[in-house]
């Protein structure tokens, strides 16, 4: 069983290829029920995953689906298909390999269900769809192996939970099904193994040589505050000149845009440099990808859109601008340079400000120590389970006991209680409302012991709404007068624009002309500085592990550039440096206002929540807070009265959180996602939105209605859980309280301190008054009336 077909062995020899030890090991372990292979980028781990399949199929394979390969990216499946075809065709093996994604045409999709290939390459979303058809047991009846590529990336989101439920489904159809997970960056191998399935064996390949990474040396020191790394542009251009292809990573699309704009202004040699991020139109992204693959570009400014996936060209340098926030992502990005086994990847870090110098140093240490980070996974989210139940009903009905047994066999749902499962089933079947209004119109009906769709015609709509990826509602940006589409911006951002505002997209400055039928119409506006630069920013919080490293570093031997070391020394002289087991607070007057700085090192989201909770307490204590700003490290609050003492009481903070949360926009945004994933509402499809008539009304209304009339409803529970974990990040506030206990040092000072000073320059200041939005809207309305000459 473990022998490769002779023709394939011969072909490998002809190419001068020899199997790596971990590839041999995968062949030897082909019979194991579940294996997690951790191998570095470029180490042939995908081939390692497929080798047992090729051995089993052999030279004269029987028809039928043998192996399912699942990747997080559509582009990756097409790439893998090409890569597999070469050896298969070279060796003359009659193994059929096909991919199936949202881009696959109708005819091929139909044919694949009737006559599946030996190896099918797909995504979790396409697999979910396949499993809703009644003929799924026939198609998957002979399935032997499943390969999950980049499994760490899938495990980071609900897509992974959904996939594990689907694997449980497939396993129930084929008890002998074997699983393989592939990854290059895993911080906690046993946890990821448990996610893939009980009893998963871990196989770790030789990690390869140390990456060649350093901080970029620049003549000018980094600024005190802000992001973007503009100061480093001359040094970065120099590096671009010296390398074949450089990827320049940014943490947000907005920063990538601003950087690209300034890079062009400084690019006197006219080096061919492109930009690539998720807000750009698909055509524009494809143009950049092709140019890269053909070696026509020297560099690409990009975001997470190039984190994963296929090799576009011969990248030999990765530059990360701004603190990496997360070691795992940094390692992933570093791996984009030099996709060859046993050749070190080369990367440079560019801190955007002095604090980021410290963070970059901590990240470099962590990468060298191979100390990856990541938040532990919570239990499998119940909205995903609701969708799975609904999808399973589409496939022809299910027995509740059997489905429960299947669900708890999936790693993320191992701890799910029967009552929780039943609540999800009740929600799917009846809506789960306290007011039992839908007895006649239940979505699922129990017929002959099986839960089935009351109205089988509903299956089509359910299929259209499968998946756990929620697109942020975006609108297209196009040149006025039916001009070309430049990209997309968030609908929320578009709603804040007033005619005349200029912003950056695709590296161009454009001026907002108006919003017409869901399209933002703009005109080119070169040479002017953009007024608005922030859109579609994904705000990552610095990971707990990295924050801890930074705190420890303050008290070790500083191996830092002199400008940053001087800064920290000065802080230590006038105040203190934050410590791992203590919480430092500084209170000082500045510029006619009292200030309080809380160095919680809990990540941006948690520091922001802390700001909201503390200002609320201060308001009640009569300290008249006026506003605050939060970073990954600290919250700075300003107000009229000095703070001389502060008690962080967990119960009071929690109580404050409950009140504040209920009406908060974060909750509403989270609810929308939960409502879509769980199947309460349908996704708004582009076509329907085009007509201008909103088929669906705002989910905010549903949230408010449920909260008033049915506060214990399942979806509100899920929303709360998710918000606490995600945007509110209360877990990290609790971790902070656990870490510091009562060891709180409040230092009263006469001046702003070196560590607090950069916070004064941070954008994103949040004013404390409920009337802010209302006043903003009112002022804008008045201005519009005046501009239109109507008043």
């Amino acid at each position, binding site marked *: 069983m473990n022998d490769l077909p002779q023709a394939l062995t011969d072909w490998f020899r002809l190419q001068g290829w020899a199997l790596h030890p971990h590839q041999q090991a995968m062949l030897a372990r082909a019979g194991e029920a579940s294996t997690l292979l951790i191998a570095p980028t470029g180490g042939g781990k995908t081939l390692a995953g497929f080798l047992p399949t090729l051995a089993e199929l052999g030279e004269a394979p029987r028809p039928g689906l043998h192996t399912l390969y699942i990747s997080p990216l559509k582009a990756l499946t097409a790439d893998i298909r090409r890569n597999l075809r070469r050896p298969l065709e070279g060796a003359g093996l009659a193994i059929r390999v096909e991919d199936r994604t949202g881009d696959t045409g109708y005819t091929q999709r139909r044919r694949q269900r009737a006559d599946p290939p030996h190896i099918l390459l797909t995504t979790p979303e396409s697999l979910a769809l396949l499993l809703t058809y009644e003929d799924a047991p026939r198609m998957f009846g002979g399935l032997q192996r499943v390969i999950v590529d980049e499994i760490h990336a899938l495990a980071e989101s609900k897509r992974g939970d959904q996939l594990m439920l689907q694997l449980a489904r497939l396993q129930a159809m084929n008890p002998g099904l074997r699983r393989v997970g592939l990854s290059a960056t895993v911080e906690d191998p046993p946890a990821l193994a448990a996610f893939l399935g009980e009893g998963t064996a871990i196989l770790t390949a030789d990690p390869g040589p140390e990456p060649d990474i350093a901080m970029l040396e620049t003549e000018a020191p980094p600024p005190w505050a802000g992001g973007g790394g503009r100061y480093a542009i001359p040094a970065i251009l120099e590096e671009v000149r010296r390398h074949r292809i450089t990827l320049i990573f940014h943490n947000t699309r907005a920063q990538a845009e601003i950087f690209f704009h300034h890079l062009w202004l400084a690019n006197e040699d006219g080096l061919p440099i492109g930009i690539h991020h998720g807000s750009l139109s698909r055509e524009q992204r494809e143009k950049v990808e092709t140019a890269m693959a053909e070696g026509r570009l020297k560099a690409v400014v990009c975001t997470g859109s190039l984190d994963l996936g296929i090799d576009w060209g011969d990248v030999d340098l990765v530059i990360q601008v701004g603190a990496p926030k997360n070691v795992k992502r940094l390692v992933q990005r570093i791996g984009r340079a030099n996709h060859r086994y046993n050749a070190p990847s080369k990367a440079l870090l560019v801190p955007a400000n002095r604090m980021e110098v410290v963070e970059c140093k901590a990240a470099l240490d962590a990468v060298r120590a191979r100390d990856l980070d990541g938040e532990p996974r919570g239990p499998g989210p119940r909205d995903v389970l609701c969708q799975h139940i609904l999808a399973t009903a589409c496939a022809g009905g299910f027995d509740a006991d059997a489905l429960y047994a299947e669900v708890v066999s999936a790693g993320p749902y191992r701890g799910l209680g029967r009552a929780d499962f039943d609540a999800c089933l009740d929600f799917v079947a*009846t*809506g789960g*409302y306290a*007011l039992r*209004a*839908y007895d*006649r*119109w239940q*979505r699922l009906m129990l017929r002959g012991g099986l839960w089935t*769709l*009351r*109205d089988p*015609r*509903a299956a089509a*709509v359910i299929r259209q709404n499968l998946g756990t990826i929620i697109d942020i509602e975006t609108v297209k940006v196009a040149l006025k007068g039916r001009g070309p589409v430049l990209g997309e911006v968030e609908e929320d951002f578009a*709603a*804040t624009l*007033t*005619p005349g505002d200029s912003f950056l997209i695709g590296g161009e400055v454009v001026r907002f002309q*108006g*919003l*017409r*039928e869901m399209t933002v119409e703009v005109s080119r506006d070169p040479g002017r500085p953009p007024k608005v630069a922030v859109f579609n920013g994904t705000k990552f919080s610095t990971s707990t592990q990295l924050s801890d490293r930074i705190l420890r570093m303050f008290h070790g031997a500083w191996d830092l550039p002199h400008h940053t070391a001087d800064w920290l020394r000065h802080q230590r002289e006038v105040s203190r440096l934050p410590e791992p087991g203590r919480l430092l607070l500084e209170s000082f007057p500045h510029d006619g206002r009292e200030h309080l700085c809380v160095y919680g090192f809990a990540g941006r989201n948690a520091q922001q929540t802390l700001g909201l909770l503390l200002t609320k307490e201060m308001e009640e204590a009569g300290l008249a807070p006026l506003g605050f700003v939060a970073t990954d490290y600290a919250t700075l609050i300003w107000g009229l009265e000095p703070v001389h003492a502060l008690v962080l009481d967990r119960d009071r903070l929690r109580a404050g959180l409950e009140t504040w949360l209920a009406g908060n926009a974060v909750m509403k945004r989270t609810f929308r996602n939960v409502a879509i994933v769980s*199947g*309460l*509402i*349908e996704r708004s499809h582009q076509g329907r939105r085009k007509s*201008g*008539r*909103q*088929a*669906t*009304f*705002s989910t905010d*209304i*549903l949230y408010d*209605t*449920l909260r*008033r*009339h*049915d506060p214990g*409803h399942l979806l509100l529970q899920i929303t709360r859980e998710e918000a606490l974990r995600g945007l509110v990040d209360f877990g990290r506030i609790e971790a902070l309280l656990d870490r510091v206990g009562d060891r709180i040092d409040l230092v009263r000072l006469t001046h702003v301190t070196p560590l607090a000073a950069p916070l004064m320059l941070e954008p994103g200041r949040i004013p404390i008054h409920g009337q802010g*939005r*209302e006043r*903003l*809207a*009112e002022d*804008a*309305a008045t201005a*519009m*009336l005046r501009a*239109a000459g*109507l008043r």
Partner: protein
Amino acid sequence: MSYRFTLQGAGLEARPSGALWWPEAGLLVVSDLHFGKSERLARRGGTLLPPYETRETLGRLDADLEATGASHVICLGDSFDDLAAESALDEADRLWLIRLMAGRAWTWVEGNHDPGPLSLAGSHRAEVVAPPLVFRHICSGALGEVSGHYHPKARLPGRSAPCFLIDGERVILPAYGTYTGGLWCDAPALTALMRPDALAVLTGPRCLVRPMRA
């Protein structure tokens, strides 16, 4: 806070709730209540929305009646999502509605969703003429016409909400029902009906006024 204006000589008030108040006539007008919308969606095999929108809408209507002391109410069409929704009305909600109707002149104007006669009390009309105004479900272009049907909505920075569309010749009311989508006020279907200087009055905690075309 309401927005006061004059239409063909009649002094009117656009209320933040989405109701139109004509003090001189003691008349309150609401349009597109869409009672029973969630029930109808469920019946059609769609999603099971929180079944509380009828009582939510009744709650606002109750508050508007309390605040204005209206003696006459016109429901300007599409009061029920369809005829079956009317018969499926929850008993508690039906009693609440009957209590609101008691002691008031109540007129149900036909809409495209509920064209037939209704089982509820009150008078049933295709339109109501009360010079200088005329009330019908869909805008016909007549002077002094108050209509609904389109569910207009508008945006301002930080807010988007159902809105009144008002010019010197006519008014189009926002949908009063809780679960109602809408048509952006700059959609051609609406700009074709209103004069260039028309205003959009956004509902919400208080009325906000902007030009309809921006």
